């Protein structure tokens, strides 16, 4: 899958690199087939077959194959798509910037409570989206902590759990652990002497960040950013719990499917969601992947 290739920051995915063996060391075709069979079976049973079934479902709708175009032609769906894309991209960018700085700091500095802080930052990994949504409500909902405090201070309840800000915070919250861990893994491998060498050549801080640190972190940023984006595109639990007033695409799909029994449209939107997410990730990979590829393979 594109995602995994992205994850490795590689430009030309190949079987041998993927499985960590060189072609010459590979087993005979028969053994190869035998080894591959379980994987192929699982992919077929749980991914390909349902995918084909969903794709076929579209044809049963009143509009037939043309249903695939509703996401572009129907204003409501299209708006939902744009909102979802913007939200996911926004969450990804903010998470990358935030975690890039925090992860770098955590790797480069040792202080009391460091491991506790890392533990706390990566805790949301173990929470499902529904729980995260619930936490956002506790924070910024009608009875939330923020509202309570602001009410006491300025006599006005600040509530943002149910609009775009709440959703954004929820998504950000569970994006942070993955990105931080990936950034820290990349940052550990970054030789501090690279930065010192650049500085000795007169490079100011911003140039060191641009020319040395960012290229070094790029593989981690791309892989975790891709996961972050894809997760946000498909996230459902948080949006559902928040009963938010903005329609993210997964919510629209759910509504069409369960309430309106509009199975063909739900199926078309599902496929579209998958394809568009994949296209976005491929585009990013195409734009920055080459660079990251150089960075991963370079170094002493």
């Amino acid at each position, binding site marked *: 899958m594109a995602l995994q290739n992205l994850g490795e920051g590689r430009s030309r995915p190949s079987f041998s690199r993927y499985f960590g063996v060189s072609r010459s060391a590979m087993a005979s075709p028969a053994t190869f087939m035998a080894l591959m069979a379980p994987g192929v079976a699982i992919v077929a049973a749980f991914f390909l077959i349902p995918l084909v079934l969903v794709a076929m479902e579209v044809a049963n709708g009143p509009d037939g194959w043309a249903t695939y175009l509703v996401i572009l032609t129907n204003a409501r769906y299209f708006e939902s798509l744009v909102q979802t894309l913007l939200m996911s991209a926004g969450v990804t960018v903010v998470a990358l910037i935030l975690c890039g700085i925090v992860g770098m700091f955590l790797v480069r500095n040792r202080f009391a409570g460091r491991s506790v802080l890392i533990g706390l930052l990566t805790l949301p990994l173990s929470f499902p989206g529904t729980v995260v949504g619930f936490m956002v409500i506790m924070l910024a909902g009608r009875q939330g902590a923020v509202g309570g405090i602001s009410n006491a201070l300025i006599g006005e309840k600040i509530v943002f759990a149910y609009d775009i800000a709440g959703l954004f915070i929820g998504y950000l919250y569970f994006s942070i652990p993955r990105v931080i861990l990936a950034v820290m893994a990349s940052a550990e491998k970054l030789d501090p002497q690279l930065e010192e060498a*650049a*500085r*000795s*050549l*007169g*490079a100011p801080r911003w140039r060191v960040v641009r020319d040395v640190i960012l290229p070094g972190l790029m593989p981690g940023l791309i892989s975790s950013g891709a996961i972050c984006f894809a997760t946000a595109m498909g996230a459902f639990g948080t949006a559902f719990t928040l009963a938010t007033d903005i329609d993210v695409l997964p919510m629209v799909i759910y509504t069409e499917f369960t309430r309106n029994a509009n199975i063909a449209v739900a199926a078309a939107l599902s496929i579209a969601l998958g394809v568009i997410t994949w296209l976005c990730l491929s585009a990013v990979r195409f734009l920055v992947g080459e660079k990251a590829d150089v960075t991963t393979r370079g170094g*002493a």
Partner: protein
Amino acid sequence: MNATAMAQPGSQTVQTEKTGGTRIELARCTKTFPDGTRALLPFDLTINGGETLVLLGPSGCGKTTILRLIAGLEFPDAGGKITFGEDDVTRQSIEKRRVGMVFQSYALFPNMTVAENVAYGLKVQKVERRERDERVRAMLEMMHIDMLADRRIDQLSGGQRQRVALARAIALRPRVLLLDEPLTALDAKLRVKLRTEINSLLRKLGITAIYVTHDQEEAMALGDRIVVMQKGAIAQIGTPREIYRAPLSPFVADFVGASNRLDGRIEQNSLVLGDVKISLDQIGHAMTGDPIKNGDSNSNSRSGQGLADIYFRADGLAICAPDQGQIRGRVEAISYLGEKSRLTVSGIGESVITLDVDPDFQIAIGDDIHCRFNPERLTVFGRYPDARNAAQAM
């Protein structure tokens, strides 16, 4: 040679003051890290313009810290002062200091080609394109890597990488070139080859250079002067010959390879070792005066009586005919080194002694041998608490 003529640490005994390079002075510098580690005790150090100064010492003695102070990557504790020529750089940041750095890990930018690496500093300094290309080409040619210009770093061998790192460091014509164990990651043969190249490069450029190593041989081969360091302090400063022949302390003697040690006594201007008695005037290097303290010696007063530590290399003791022998020993091991054989001999001191013989000399393990000292090659230290501590501190 004797110790009276020896360099006092900090004094200038360098023969040739080369022109062109920047003179660097560190005055009353100390370095205490935030965690309380006292990495450098108070010291003064002057590096003459164009000189190659080698910082030599065991791991953790503070070599890198001195280098980083000069680079501007660390700052000395309050009271210290660092000048480049007339320029007080004590609080100047590394970006402004114009220093070239070469690291053991090469620290080449993996996302750039060889030529881009070398061009990086010129680009940052906004050197115009045409001149930049010209300078990069000249640097690559000088380091014999012009054919690698468009290679990526991961396509280079270790030796090639270090050449690129050197080219990158000197491309900006820095005021001082700082090299931190640049050859340690390379294999022995390449190390010697590159060492020779670096040596001629430094002479050709006439640049002030500070070279950190823990390898005594490298220090001897490259340094105009060597600073031997011990636990955050300067143990001795001198030319390679001075350091080798006239170490100021047992620590220095041992560190630069005088690994044989015997216990003796000093009586009436003579070194006494069992039945053997050698006049101190014949001894190559004798430090029998006042307590040796921080390299500060006064070896004029030789009247001292008492215990002595004798240090020497494999050439300080030689096999001889039985009637000429001063002491006897037993051969424990023989290693054939090609142009010589090295014997490990027991029975002379508390621990075994190594000495060299002609590789064709007929001898076997277990043989009894008769040996004679070569007084010229002995180093004798009157034993004082300070000297003892220094020796044990290693």
